[in-house]
């Protein structure tokens, strides 16, 4: 059974109408190109000793991009790496100057290109929150008065006078995230910072995003995560090669994105644009304990999941992730190949086999295995996303829930009709 994963994302109520709201960001005909020198001259010595004029390669990062965003919208910008979305973000944030076109904006904007930029490890959280607030356009007094709220959200009150260099990376990310949401800019520009911290904190962040979606605040979210786009955004825009290729309903845009990126036929031989998957899943199967291929497993029995992949091109620093989704599209469980076991690179033509033994806590039902492959050890650098490499059935007596856990439950019953 094939599950079209893009159809059944979480149901998103999109009851809000924005036609009556004022436009807060208006971009018209924005273009930006970079002149990349073939041989970069970066010293005076080279400048003097290089006689030939340097050759430049023109890279059009943005071509005639126009859009409008109305107040209160949660607007998604999606596109693969190199599609120009980060450039667009930097133009909106006044980090790059556009070559042509015009951007107009109402209200103050706070960009979050990366969490915790401008944090000074030698300073305490207190000083950093103030400094960051001022960088985001607050007055010093305002920035200081925000300290309490920032620390409360980040759950770091006890560490207010600790230098950031002594923070754990999780604490740092929590502080950065709460600084971000506490900046009271009318417009937030957010680049890929959704999944931070531990599970509990992630839930908190998700709540904040939900809240933002329903507030007056305008949010622009740049992401690879189609789930997030469908979940949070009112509207989305697809960028490809610096051009707007889609605009409107997030589900629609997400489907377009997936089609553009993953459904290009691997066998077409077209090699020029990176449209061909660098790695293809040649085979995926389940085995029983004796090494025999099986198509279904009994509830509670160990899962032996195997996959064979072939690299079509060299892939540096690959990582592999697999998730098991039930027919509702809910990813019940997932795992990645541990970093220690991963090869540094896979050369073109090389085949690798992944064998795993998975404790099976899946409730009976049909499951689809999805596969993610990234490169450069970077989960936003997707080489392959395959929504369906295998399906199988877990059989057994049905129980409530999508997975089962042995949980100790203590009961206490009070009241009711006396015996």
């Amino acid at each position, binding site marked *: 059974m094939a599950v079209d994963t893009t159809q059944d994302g979480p149901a998103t109520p999109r009851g809000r109408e924005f036609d009556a709201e*004022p*436009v*807060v960001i*208006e971009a018209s005909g924005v273009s930006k190109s*970079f002149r990349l020198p073939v041989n970069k001259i*970066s*010293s*005076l*010595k080279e*400048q003097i000793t290089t006689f030939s004029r340097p050759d430049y390669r023109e890279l059009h990062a943005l071509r005639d991009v126009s859009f409008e965003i109305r*107040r209160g919208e949660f607007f998604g910008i999606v596109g693969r790496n190199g599609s120009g979305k980060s450039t667009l973000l*930097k*133009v*909106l*944030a*006044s*980090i*790059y*100057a*556009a070559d042509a076109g*015009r*951007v*107009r*904006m*109402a*209200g103050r*904007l706070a*960009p979050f*290109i*990366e969490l915790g*930029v*401008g944090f*000074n490890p*030698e*300073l305490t959280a207190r*000083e950093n929150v*103030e*400094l960051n607030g*001022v*960088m985001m*356009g607050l*007055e*010093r007094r305002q920035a200081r008065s925000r300290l309490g*709220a920032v620390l409360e959200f980040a759950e770091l009150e006890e560490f207010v006078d600790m230098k950031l260099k002594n923070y754990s990376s999780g604490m740092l990310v929590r502080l950065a995230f709460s600084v971000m*949401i*506490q900046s*009271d800019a*009318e417009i937030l520009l957010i680049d890929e910072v959704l999944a931070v911290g531990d599970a509990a904190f992630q839930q908190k962040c998700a709540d*904040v995003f939900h*809240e*933002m979606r*329903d*507030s*007056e*605040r305008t949010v622009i979210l740049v992401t690879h995560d189609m789930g997030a786009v469908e979940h949070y955004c009112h509207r989305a825009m697809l960028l490809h090669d610096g051009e707007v290729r889609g605009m409107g309903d997030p589900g629609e845009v997400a489907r377009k994105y997936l089609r553009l990126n993953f459904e290009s036929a691997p066998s077409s031989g077209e090699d020029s644009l990176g449209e061909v998957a660098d790695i293809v899943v040649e085979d995926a199967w389940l085995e029983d304990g004796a090494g025999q291929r099986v198509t279904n497993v009994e509830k509670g029995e160990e899962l032996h999941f195997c996959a064979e992949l072939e690299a079509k091109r060299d892939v540096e620093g690959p990582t592999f992730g697999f998730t098991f989704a039930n027919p509702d599209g809910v990813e019940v469980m997932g795992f990645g190949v541990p970093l220690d076991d991963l090869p540094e690179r896979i050369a073109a033509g090389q085949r690798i086999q992944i064998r795993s033994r998975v404790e099976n806590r899946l409730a009976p039902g049909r499951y689809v295995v999805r596969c993610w492959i990234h490169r450069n050890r970077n989960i936003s650098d997707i080489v392959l996303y395959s929504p369906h490499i295998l399906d199988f059935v877990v059989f057994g007596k049905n129980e409530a829930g999508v997975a089962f856990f042995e949980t100790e439950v203590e009961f206490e019953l009070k009241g009711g009709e006396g015996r």
Partner: protein
Amino acid sequence: MSAEAQTPAQPLELREVRGPSATGGGSRRFFELLWLISATEFKKSFHGTAFGYIWSLVRPLMLFAVLLVVFTRIIRFGGGVPNYPVMLLFNLVVFGLFQEGTGAGVGSVLAQESIVRKTQFPRLVIPLSSVMVALFTVALNLIAVFAFILIYGVNPMWTWLLLPVILFLVFVLTCAASLLLSALNVRFRDIAIIWTVIAQVLLYASPIIYPFEIILPSFLRDVLLANPFTLIFEQARVWIIDPTAPSALDIAGSWAAMLPAAAIYVLTCVLGVWVFKREAPKIAERL
């Protein structure tokens, strides 16, 4: 947080986004950032070590001690100059403002790469805060210098009150040079290395370790006279160390003879501001 965001609809006016600039983001934010960053960097320079302040004094003091021994015991010309040790120490510390300010300034924009590339940040703050840190350090060092001056036996003079004029002149030139250098260093990464050499040359091409009057009329003398530091340090000597020393006007001979130095001073300032303003919008792309 969302409650605050839900303010009643205020009139929304679309304003053009003009892209990155040297001072973008309003003057209040500019000065607050400048102050905050300078102050924290300054604090930081002491925090790491228990003897933080002592360390900032060690560098000029060591140089002072070495030069003092060389010029009073080995080469023996310092002996003829009134209050030579005091003059030497004072000059070294004040010139330290230029040396340390530009030394930190030249690489500052490159060092703050992530801020420049990932936040909306008035670029001008970056080199200026480096100079501010140098200014704070020198101001602190000058307390020690004046203690030394008094101990040495120089009587306090009302012209000591003119010290801020000297510092201001050096400060402005340091800022201008830092703007110029930090902007160029983004394009040509070897500027920082070249600059350490030039700064060293400037130390000897200014009357820091010798008084100007020992140089006999010559082509060299004319060249040194075109150095703005020559006039600044000679005038400082009159005001702070030795009222009988020749003033800037005396050594130049006439107001007209001071023009080249003044022109170079103004030109450096104009060039620094102009280059930085021109480069500022493109800095994020070149990094």
